[in-house]
Structures are given as C-alpha cells and as structure tokens.
C-alpha cells in the first residue's frame, strides 16, 4: 500500500497485512509531529507525483534489499502534536535487510519527494525547509 492521505493509519493492521511466506522481520518507521513549540503541523503534497515517487522508492528498496513487502503512508492536512505523519512498514527474511530497507526509504523520502511541512505556532507559522527529524 502506497498512499498519501488525510486519514490516520492503523499500524497494527498494516503490520498484520504485511506478513508473507518467508518473512522473518518487519521494521516500522513512524514519524510523528514533535512538539517543538508548535501547535499543529500542516502538510501539503504534490500528490500525483509524490505517490508515483513513493512507488518508485518502494520498488527500488525491494530490489536493493530483497524486501518481501513495503507499505508507505504519508499524511497530508492538519496534524496535531503526537499524530503520525509517515508510516513505513517493510518486511524481509532477515532483520539486516528490513532495517536497511526502512532506512533507505526514509532517507529517499526526506531527500526528494514533493511533500512539505508547515509548523504552526502561536506567533505565526513557518515552512520547514529540508530535514528536521
């Protein structure tokens, strides 16, 4: 499942759905809204392109790390502190590939997928430029 969506995601269900024959390890990355003096976060995506690029990153990670499953859900819209922003679930035969694939995917998303975050504070709001987590 590759999705850019406003709705939250059921991580437990994603994990259960990721299981495949031959799988021995699943690694989940969950990026959440951190309370750096912010009230809320607003996320915007160039949706068609971002979904296409997430799909390409997933395919590349599968090939490179021999992953048996990849799910990526990226939220958009207004999120409160503590809410899930991005959930990546990867499954592999062994933990080395699962960790490596997960890390590869998050770094690729941070580096290039057209999604933006705006931090909303009491005194105003600012677009985040580049990597902050």
């Amino acid at each position, binding site marked *: 499942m590759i999705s850019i969506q406003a709705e939250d995601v059921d991580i437990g269900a994603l994990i259960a759905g990721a299981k495949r024959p031959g799988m021995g390890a699943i690694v989940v990355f969950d*990026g959440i809204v951190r309370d750096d003096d912010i009230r809320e976060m607003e*996320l*915007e*995506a*160039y949706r*068609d*392109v*971002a979904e*296409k690029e997430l799909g390409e990153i997933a395919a590349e990670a599968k090939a490179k790390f021999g992953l048996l499953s990849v799910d990526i859900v*990226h939220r958009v819209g207004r999120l409160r502190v503590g809410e899930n*922003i*991005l959930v990546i679930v990867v499954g592999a035969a062994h933990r080395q590939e699962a960790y490596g694939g997960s890390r590869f995917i*998050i770094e690729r*998303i*941070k*580096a*290039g*997928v*057209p*999604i*933006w*975050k*705006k931090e909303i504070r009491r005194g105003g709001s600012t*677009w*985040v*430029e*580049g*990597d*902050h*987590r």
Partner: protein
Amino acid sequence: MKARVRFFARFRELLGAEVIAEPAPGTSFLTLIRDVTRGNGEGHDAVFDEGGAFREHVILMRNGKRIEATDAGETMIADGDEIAVFPPVSGG
C-alpha cells in the same frame, strides 16, 4: 496552446495553487514562469533573484519530472504541459 503551472508550499501561498496559461508556441519554461509571476512582487522575488534567474533552491518539474533550472531557458513548453515550481521538500 495551454499549460498548467502549479505552485506548492510557500510559493503557493504567494502565487496561488495554479495558473492555466496560454503561452505562444516557442515559449520557454523560464519565460512562462516569469510571465505567470509578473505583477506579484513578493511571489516573483521568492522564485527569481535580482538578475532574473531562478533562485538556487527553486525546484522545477515538467509532467512530474525534474528539470534543471539552468536548462529552463532552452526548454520549450509543449501543449498540455504541467509545470510545477516549488521550494525544497520537507516531507517524512
């Protein structure tokens, strides 16, 4: 000839989410975006530097694929193109 120009994040706030432009055949990427941002001082200055070149951090796409800002003067718009102009990404 029609082309859709989309702006995101900070650029969207300054310039609007999208403009449907009707460039003449032979219009370059650079010229089209200059035309579309003309008359919006703050928006134009967010995208272009004093010399009229794209600011270093500006990212350009044509139909979902990156194009280099340095090629934008020689890249011609085709009918139906979707052009995107945005600041550095910060997803994830």
